[in-house]
């Protein structure tokens, strides 16, 4: 079998997760029910044993949509079956990876789809308490989710004896307060427990010892939203979308220098070029592409010669990058890469929680050196210096925040080295040294 299997036909694809987005009242229970809503959850709870649900999700090949791409059913199966402790589900709606804005759409426009996914998960794993941890900045998503939960309780889809079975479930929306690190699963658990959002060492993994030191499943919004469809339309149908190793539909968030930025649902494996040119209408002014970040700002940059990369977990891994959250940021050929990388460096330095020295100091050092290069005070040894600092930041910390800066930084140093050397030699770069001189909204 080839490492990268061919994706299903991307042109014939009909949206699954976003099929109702943009329709009037798509966020209400009435709308959801009139379109077959909660049918899958009802059927699963009435006809499936929990193990059968886990088995079906394993067979579907659903992989986590939050960033790591871990097989969802396998993650669930790590939760101990026999335990005296309560089990928890934490839905990760903290969407804060720069360039990612897909979960927002589900939370705001189709929250019942998420709740149905939560019901299926909790039935499968034997969970009676679920939390949706949503970013503090997403006030509308929190409102819509709370309203949807109220509707679901009123209808008996949450609460006690759901669908007439011995199945109780409480769901609570928990708002964050502005910290990127709370999107990291163990940081999220610390925050949910009422503390600073400090990530915790793994193992123990949350499935064994997570929230309140109890077995905990942490799943991304989009992952959970896939579940009703898998049970409505079957595993075979699900696996017919996407690639062998990355089945299913995916929400791609495209931003930066494209004519039609937005959230687009396409099969996993769609070539990056097709996404940029056919789906998003190409680059403004028909300019060329300098680089593309394919999976949120922590993904290594791709160069203009890598546009045929398939947008799947395995395709991007083979290209030395990652699908991550599928936040695709396109940088046209007028973009000063040093400014772009500096922006990324500032972000991670600001968001480092400060627990681990390689991250707390490393992100700061990288930012400072990039800043002096940007300001025309770069030294000839700076490229190697940043590279060496990055080597000390990867795999040496509790969580991967420091990797999330080191990886894109090293990709730029490697792929665009001559350009950076030229900038340093010139003292002041002769290219446009800001990313844009005017506020320039798309459309």
């Amino acid at each position: 079998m080839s490492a990268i299997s061919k994706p299903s036909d991307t042109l014939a694809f009909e949206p699954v997760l976003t099929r109702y987005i943009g329709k009037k009242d798509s966020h209400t229970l009435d709308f959801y029910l009139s379109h077959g809503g909660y049918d899958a959850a009802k059927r699963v709870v009435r006809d499936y044993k929990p193990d059968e649900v886990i088995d079906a999700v394993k067979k579907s090949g659903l992989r986590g949509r939050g960033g790591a791409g871990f097989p969802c059913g396998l993650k669930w199966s790590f939760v101990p079956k026999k335990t005296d402790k309560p089990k928890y589900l934490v839905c990760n709606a903290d969407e804060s990876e720069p360039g990612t804005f897909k979960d927002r759409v589900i939370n705001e426009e189709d929250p019942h789809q998420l709740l149905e996914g939560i019901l299926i998960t909790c039935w499968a794993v034997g969970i009676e308490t679920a939390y949706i941890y949503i970013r503090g900045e997403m006030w509308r998503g929190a409102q819509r989710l709370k309203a949807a939960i109220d509707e679901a309780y009123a209808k008996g889809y949450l609460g006690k004896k759901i669908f007439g079975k011995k199945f109780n479930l409480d769901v609570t929306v928990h708002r964050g307060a502005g910290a990127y690190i709370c999107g990291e699963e163990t940081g999220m658990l610390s925050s949910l427990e009422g503390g600073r959002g400090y990530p915790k060492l793994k193992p123990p993994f949350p499935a064994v010892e997570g929230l309140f030191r109890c077995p905990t499943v942490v799943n991304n919004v989009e992952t959970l939203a896939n579940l009703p469809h898998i049970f409505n339309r079957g595993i075979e149908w699900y696996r017919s979308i996407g690639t062998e190793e990355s089945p299913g539909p995916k929400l791609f968030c495209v931003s930066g220098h494209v004519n039609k930025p937005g959230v687009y649902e396409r099969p996993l494996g769609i070539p990056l070029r097709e996404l940029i040119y056919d789906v998003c209408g190409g680059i403004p002014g028909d300019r060329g592409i300098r680089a593309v970040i394919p999976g949120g700002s922590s993904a290594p940059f791709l160069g203009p010669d890598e546009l045929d990369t398939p947008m799947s977990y395995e395709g991007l891994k083979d290209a030395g990058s990652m699908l991550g959250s599928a936040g695709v940021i396109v940088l046209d050929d007028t973009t000063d890469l040093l400014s772009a990388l500096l922006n990324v460096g500032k972000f991670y330095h600001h968001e480092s929680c400060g627990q681990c020295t390689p991250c707390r100091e490393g992100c700061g050092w990288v930012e400072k050196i990039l800043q002096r290069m940007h300001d025309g005070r770069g030294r000839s040894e700076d490229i190697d210096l940043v590279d060496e600092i990055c080597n000390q930041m990867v795999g040496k910390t509790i969580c991967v925040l420091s990797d999330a800066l080191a990886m894109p930084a090293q990709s730029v140093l490697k792929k665009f080295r001559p350009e950076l050397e030229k900038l340093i030699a010139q003292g002041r770069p002769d290219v446009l040294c800001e990313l844009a001189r005017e506020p320039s909204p798309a459309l």
Partner: protein
Amino acid sequence: MSRELSPEAQKEFDWLVTRYPQREAAMLPTLRLIEREFGCIDPEGMKLCAQLIGCSPAKVFGVVTFYTHYKRETDGENVVYVCGTLPCALRGSDALADYLCDRVGIGLGETTEDRKITIKKVECLALCDQAPVCQVEDVDWLRVSKEKADEMLESLGIPKRETAGAAAGGEEKRS
């Protein structure tokens, strides 16, 4: 005199703590409650939170200062958050922030003397297809051009400049 929650807010708090098996887990939502009740979280608010949760004020202080989205007593009445992360930066958010600061007459991160407006940089607001983006309290301002920025400032009581062109229509903000 120490602070108290209003009866309605107290009721909400009493419900909140039933949603978690440990009282301390209600910390973040309780801080939101206090923020809403008293307009910001100041040291008195932190003491109240500590009383309600049953922990030390130092613990609350540690939590509050970890997060950037709680309104503090040092913030102005309205906080203008300007997203400055890469997708917005590619669409001119640095220039937008400069423009806003220039018009309001303060630096980034500063508050006007009348304490009406604070302008802060914020990290990715997850509205990258609408870049550049600002958030003022519960309103997201999308695709913010200079004209749109003038309109935003006008909603905060800063009259438009006479030279500014007519603002574009369309759904460019939401509340």
